[in-house]
C-alpha cells in the first residue's frame, strides 16, 4: 500500500480530492480502491462543462473484474478531464494519487471539502474494511 498524501481529502466511496493553488479541485480514486478493483481496462470520463456532485456518479472505472461509479467529492462544474486514461487506464493502477487523476472540478463552495475524510480518518476506514 502506497502512502496516502497528506494534502488529500476522501469520500467513503474512495474518491480523493485535492484543492489546488488555482482553487480548482482535482479528483481521482484511492490506491486502495484501484487495488480492490484490479487491472483497469476502461475509464468513462465526464463531459467538460457538466455539473457534478457527491450524489450522482459522473465517471466509471472498469477493471477486468468490475465496473464502479466515480462521484465528485464536491458540487461544481467539470473543467478538465484526464484524456490520457483513454489509452492508458492502467495509470490509475500505477499511480492513483498522481498520473491517475480522473477530472478537475471548479467547486461551487470550497467549504464542502471540510466535510470529507482527512487522510488519517480514511486510513482508519480502509483498515476497518479489511477486518
Amino acid at each position: 500500500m502506497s502512502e496516502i498524501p497528506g494534502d488529500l481529502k476522501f469520500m467513503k466511496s474512495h474518491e480523493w480530492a485535492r484543492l489546488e493553488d488555482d482553487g480548482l479541485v482535482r479528483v481521482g480514486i484511492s490506491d486502495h480502491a484501484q487495488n480492490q478493483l484490479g487491472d483497469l481496462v476502461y475509464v468513462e470520463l465526464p463531459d467538460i462543462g457538466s455539473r457534478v456532485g457527491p450524489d450522482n456518479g459522473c465517471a466509471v472505472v472498469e477493471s477486468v473484474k468490475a465496473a464502479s461509479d466515480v462521484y465528485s467529492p464536491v458540487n461544481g462544474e467539470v473543467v478538465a478531464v484526464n484524456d490520457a486514461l483513454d489509452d492508458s487506464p492502467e495509470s490509475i493502477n500505477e499511480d492513483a494519487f498522481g498520473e491517475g487523476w480522473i477530472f478537475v472540478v471548479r467547486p461551487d463552495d470550497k467549504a464542502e471539502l471540510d466535510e470529507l475524510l482527512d487522510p488519517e480518518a480514511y486510513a482508519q476506514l480502509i483498515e476497518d474494511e479489511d477486518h
Partner: protein
Amino acid sequence: MTAKTVLNEAHRAQGARMVDFGGWDMPINYGSQIEEHHAVRQDAGMFDVSHMTVVDLHGERVRDFLRRLLANSVDKLTEHGKALYTCMLNERGGVIDDLIVYYLGEHFFRIVVNAATREKDLAWVERQAQAFEVEVRVRDDFAMIAVQGPHAREKMIGLLAEVDRERIEAMGKFHAAAAQALHGVPLFVARTGYTGEDGFEVMVPEEHAVELWQALLDAGVRPAGLGARDTLRLEAGMNLYGQDMDEDVSPWEASLGWTVAMDEGRDFIGRGALEAQKEQGVKRRMIGLVLDEKGVLRHGQTVLTEAGEGEILSGSFSPTLGKAIAFARVPSGELGDVRVAIRNRELPVRVVKYPFVRDGKPREGI
C-alpha cells in the same frame, strides 16, 4: 465457513489477493491478473485448483454406471489414462455439472467435478451409484496444481524423476498417467486444462503440494489466480458452470451438444428430455460476442436481437484481444444486428464463432 487449500499460506506469502470462491478462500490475483494471463499465453503459469473435487469410482459395474450417469459415452474410453469431458444431467436434461472422467481400469474410473457444486454432485453420484454397487471415494488427500502455457510441459517434466520424463513427454492430449516427482513423490499427471494452452493438471498428495508449488516457482512458472483463469478459459471458448449453464439449461442451449453421445441403446439420465427438446426445436442457443467499442461486456447485461432479448452469460475484457468478449444466450432464429445494453447505452456487438483465441493468438476474423 471458508475452506482453505493446503497452498493457502503459499498464496498469501506471494501477496495474493484472496476471495471467497464457492466457499473456498482462493487467490484472485497476485498483483496483476492481466500480466498473469499473458504469462500463461506466452510462457507458463500455475493455478491452485485443489478446491476441485476428485472422486474415485470403483466396482465391477462402474462402466455401466457411467454409461447411465454421463451424457458423453465412456465407451469412448478404452485406453488406460484416457480422459473425456462430459456433462452430468438431471432427468429434465439440465446440467448438474460438467466434469472430466479418466479411465484407469475396467473397474476404476476417476472423475473431477467443480468445487462450487461439490455437495450436490456427491449426493447425486452416490444416489445413482447404489444400484450399480459402485464405491464412491472422495480423494481429499489430493491437492491439484494446473501448470499451463506453451512452456508449461517442459518446466513440469524437468521436475519429474528421470525414468518418467520420456513417457510423460510423449503422452498425448487428454491423457493422464502416474509419474514420480524428483524425490519419489507420487503424482497423477493429466495433459488437460482450462486455459486453451497446452499443459498439465497435476494431482499431488496434499503433504507434498507446497514443495511441488515451490519447485515450479523455482523453475520459473508464474502463479496465476482465478481472475486470469476466468479470462483465459473465456478466450478459449470454455464454459463455466453456474454462469454459462446450470440445471435449467440443456447442453443444446449451452453449445455443449458436441459432448452428448446419442449412441444406440444407451439410456443415460436426461436422454429422453434431450431428444424431446431436439424434436420440438431448441428455443435458445449460446453465441460468442465481441465488442469493438470501449466498454466491458458483463454477466447479466441484456442482449438485443431481432429474434428477441437474450443475456450475457460470461463476459469480460479479453487481455489477448484488448477488447471485451462474451458468451450470450439468445433466442434461436435470425438475430439481425445485435446490441448490448450497457448503462443506458446500446452498443453494437459482433457475433463470432469461438474460441476467441487459439495457440496464444486471436483467431482470424476476431
